[in-house]
């Protein structure tokens, strides 16, 4: 007969407990799992990447329905536990009782809400679970958010909201950010970094009250400052959720007291996670929670295990902010500091030494050696010998080579690699020896790098150090076989060395072939014409046939011809001209495209110039349906005809298409403008999609509906059509100047980050400069290629140089 185990709370600690339990003995317990949230266990520490849009909820689910079903867990999600009847050994839920033999309380913690006036207004939220995160995600770009609390959680919320295009202010009570983890100098660098992203930071800011009728309208500070706000996020701390335990007579101090086996004052009731107190200590980071889960699983299976808290370190999960702190770095008698600063690169490192041991470390901007320092703190290593060079890291100790691999190879087996999951180097090496030869396999066997992911690089280095040449380190791919340089390197060198011709690139960058190949030539040609529009001349011979012939080659060697229809608008005369051309050149297939125009398929190559001349005569120009350039601007009818339209979406679409056509880009670029949020033009899956609303224009970027399907991310909301055009042009130019050839905007954005793009474009001067550079390039490239090529001497190139069959027939 299986024993009955009831678990209250489906969080990271209890989830890990169940994993250990089922792994060790799937038949030991019949499990019932209560959760107040209407869902199962997900990786809560990854909510920040969900908020910032770098991950989706589905990606952070730890246990899905199938997992619970497979392990026969009775799930009671969305149901609160009302009380525990300890005499009858029953848990009383809102929808009925469940008997237990063993009970685990894993109720976690509750966010602390400052009980000031207005704290219960709509729009005041905590940052704790998926519902909070979704509420933030649903707040429109351009709205004003105030985040109260400049600690780890508050800053991750602020950064995520900023990435979503909100106007964000962080209020922090102490004199510098993250004062529990950082010293003032590192706090200053962090603040400067956040401000560069457009986040306003106010320190020594004490909240007096939150104003508003039913919804939040503003936050008032003690000094009288009033900050308008549409959303207030309280991230001032958490409190162990120990109420249930306390009400039911368990011993609770600050949290539920447990012994080293995770047992509460009732021998059949256990507790893990943020709701417990052990030896006077509370726990908020994930690593000790996992340790507790492991101990409790053993206890429940009748094995011996003892929980012992370890030294902890902290990393901030804000893309682009490298920050690390560990140990104790308060000043004190007998303590000495070693500090390294490089303000230009934004690097700060501070080590705190006491009795020849490292007791604390704070790093900002460069955290590559963080784990090595953390190891020294944990092990209490005597650092007297290396003190002079200590701050430069492991590479500079004892004349060892400056090789990160050597540093990893030198780590002892018990050095911790993955802080979240408490995985040591030895376990990873054992997994590798057991056949886990890539990152995915190591993750699956050991969980190393499977939580927050910041140690991924280290895990790869352990793989490389263990497997040697058998492991291929994922490196920047070279452009092609002609060079070892990556696309990014080539782009950078073309700019920095002012290389203005293809031969200059081949020569200066050491191409191994005389004139490149079909892979690098189109890329280099694009980089040169994008960076030097006046100096460099486009080379048709370095273009794929479609861009050389200004038509799409089909599988039988014929071509397709697509005239431009500005914003999808056409006329009877244009349609007549298209129909005439279709007749005259025996076009077998006429098709309406997804980009709101007409495709004439099956045209013979030698007929192209004459057909273009006919279409040109009717006022039609090339639609560039073949180019890595602006394709179409799809529109709906907006205020012209639609009863829901809020703006002239057709007019804006035509204006954008007239401005952008003819420009070459790293990959094709498709736009759309929808006249209202019903979004008939499907703007939210375009490279740039504009959705008109009553108050202006919401510009989203980085959508896709091809091999990948992606919704646009909000870039900005602007009030006028002129601004919408300016932002769009500036965005396209930024993409032209920085993206890798053949990366659509969404791929480029995933590399550089939307926040960098927003930060760049928010600067009005930079935006104008980008627009100016785009317009300069357009003075050269905004020409109709059909008109150019239809002239007699160019048209000849489309025909055979000679026809020897005719003479043969004579």
């Amino acid at each position: 007969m299986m024993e009955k185990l009831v678990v209250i709370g489906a969080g990271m600690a209890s989830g890990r407990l169940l994993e250990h339990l089922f792994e060790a003995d799937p038949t030991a317990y019949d499990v019932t799992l209560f959760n107040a949230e209407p869902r199962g266990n997900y990786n809560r520490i990854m909510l920040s990447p969900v908020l910032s849009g770098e991950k989706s909820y589905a990606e952070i689910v730890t246990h899905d329905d199938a997992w619970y079903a497979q392990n026969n867990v009775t799930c009671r999600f969305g149901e609160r536990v009302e009380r525990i009847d300890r005499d009858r050994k029953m848990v009383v839920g809102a929808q009925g009782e469940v008997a237990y033999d063993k009970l685990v309380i894993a109720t976690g913690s509750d966010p602390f809400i400052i009980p000031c006036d207005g704290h219960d207004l709509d729009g005041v939220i905590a940052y704790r679970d998926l519902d909070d995160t979704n509420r933030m995600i649903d707040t429109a770009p351009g709205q004003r958010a105030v985040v109260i609390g400049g600690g780890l959680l508050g800053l991750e919320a602020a950064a995520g909201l900023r990435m979503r295009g909100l106007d964000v202010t962080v209020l922090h009570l102490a004199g510098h950010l993250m004062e529990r983890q950082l010293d003032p100098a590192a706090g200053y660098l962090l603040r400067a970094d956040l401000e560069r992203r457009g986040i306003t930071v106010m320190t020594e800011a004490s909240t007096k009250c939150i104003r508003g009728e039913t919804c939040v309208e503003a936050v008032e500070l003690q000094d009288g400052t009033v900050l308008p706000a549409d959303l207030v996020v309280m991230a001032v701390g958490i409190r162990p959720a120990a109420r249930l335990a306390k009400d039911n007579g368990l011993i609770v101090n600050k949290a539920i007291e447990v012994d080293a086996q995770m047992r509460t004052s009732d021998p059949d009731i256990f507790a893990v996670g943020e709701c417990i107190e052990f030896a006077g200590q509370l726990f908020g980071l994930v690593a000790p929670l996992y340790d507790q889960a492991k101990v409790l699983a053993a206890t429940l299976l009748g094995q011996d295990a003892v929980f012992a808290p370890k030294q902890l370190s902290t990393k901030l999960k804000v893309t682009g902010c490298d920050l690390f702190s560990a140990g104790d770095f308060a000043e004190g008698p007998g303590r000495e500091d070693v500090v390294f600063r490089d303000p230009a690169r934004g690097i700060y490192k501070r080590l705190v030494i006491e009795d020849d041991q490292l007791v604390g470390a704070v790093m900002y901007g460069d955290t590559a050696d963080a784990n090595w320092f953390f190891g020294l703190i944990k092990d209490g290593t005597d650092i007297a010998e290396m003190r002079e060079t200590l701050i430069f890291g492991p590479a500079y100790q004892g004349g060892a080579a400056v090789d990160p691999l050597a540093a990893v190879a030198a780590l002892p087996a018990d050095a911790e690699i993955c802080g979240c999951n408490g995985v040591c180097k030895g376990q990873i090496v054992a997994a590798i020896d057991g056949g886990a030869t890539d990152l995915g396999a190591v993750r699956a066997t050991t969980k190393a790098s499977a939580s927050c992911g910041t140690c991924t690089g280290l895990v790869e280095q352990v793989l490389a150090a263990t497997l040697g040449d058998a492991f291929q380190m994922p490196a920047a791919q070279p452009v092609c076989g002609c060079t070892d340089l990556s696309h990014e390197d080539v782009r950078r060198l073309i700019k920095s060395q002012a290389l203005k011709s293809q031969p200059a690139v081949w020569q200066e960058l050491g191409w191994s072939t005389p004139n490149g190949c079909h892979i690098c030539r189109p890329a280099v040609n694009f980089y040169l014409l994008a960076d030097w529009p006046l100096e460099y001349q486009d080379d048709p011979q370095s273009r794929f046939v479609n861009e050389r012939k200004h038509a799409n080659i089909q599988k039988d060697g014929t071509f397709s011809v697509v005239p431009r229809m500005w914003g999808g608008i056409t006329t009877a005369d244009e349609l007549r001209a298209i129909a005439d051309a279709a007749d005259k050149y025996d076009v077998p297939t006429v098709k309406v495209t997804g980009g709101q125009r007409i495709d004439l398929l099956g045209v013979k190559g030698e007929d192209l110039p004459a057909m273009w001349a006919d279409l040109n005569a009717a006022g039609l120009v090339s639609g560039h349906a073949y180019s890595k350039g602006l394709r179409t601007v799809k529109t709906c009818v907006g205020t012209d005809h639609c009863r829901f339209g809020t703006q002239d979406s057709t007019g804006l679409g035509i204006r954008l298409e007239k401005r952008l056509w003819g420009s070459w880009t790293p990959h094709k670029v498709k736009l759309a403008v929808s006249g209202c949020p019903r979004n008939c033009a499907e703007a939210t899956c375009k490279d740039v999609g504009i959705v008109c609303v009553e108050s202006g224009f919401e510009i989203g970027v980085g959508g896709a509906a091809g091999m990948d399907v992606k919704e646009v991310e909000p870039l900005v909301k602007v009030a006028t059509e002129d601004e919408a055009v300016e932002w769009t042009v500036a965005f396209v130019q930024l993409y032209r100047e920085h993206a890798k050839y053949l990366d659509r905007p969404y791929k480029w954005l995933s590399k550089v980050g939307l926040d960098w793009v927003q930060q760049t474009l928010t600067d009005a001067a930079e935006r104008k400069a980008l627009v100016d550079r785009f317009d300069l390039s357009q003075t050269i490239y905004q020409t109709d290629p059909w008109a150019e090529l239809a002239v007699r001497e160019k048209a000849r190139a489309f025909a055979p140089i000679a026809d020897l069959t005719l003479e043969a027939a004579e």
Partner: protein
Amino acid sequence: MSWIDVGAVTDIPLRGARVVKTPAGCVALFRTETAEVFATSNTCAHKGGPLSEGIVHGRHVTCPLHNWVWSLETGEAQGADDGRIATYPTRIEGGRILIDGAAIGKRTAA
């Protein structure tokens, strides 16, 4: 050999190609970076792509349909692919391109 004049070298762009219609089918004339001229079948042996529309690099051309790379000198497929296309002798005289008439199926010299 019977040499037939098919046009001026400058009728072909550098690192480009043109087509000659012949009794033996369409022949692609390639001009390399160094102004050499090569003639091969215009038809890719893989799926029949028009090689004259491909990108010319070194003494190679890449088919525009599926990126097979062919040697203009030997007609052999490069890299992992396996195959062969016909090549035809050419000469340059006084800036004019001459192609071997016998090889392309002409009965008499022009």
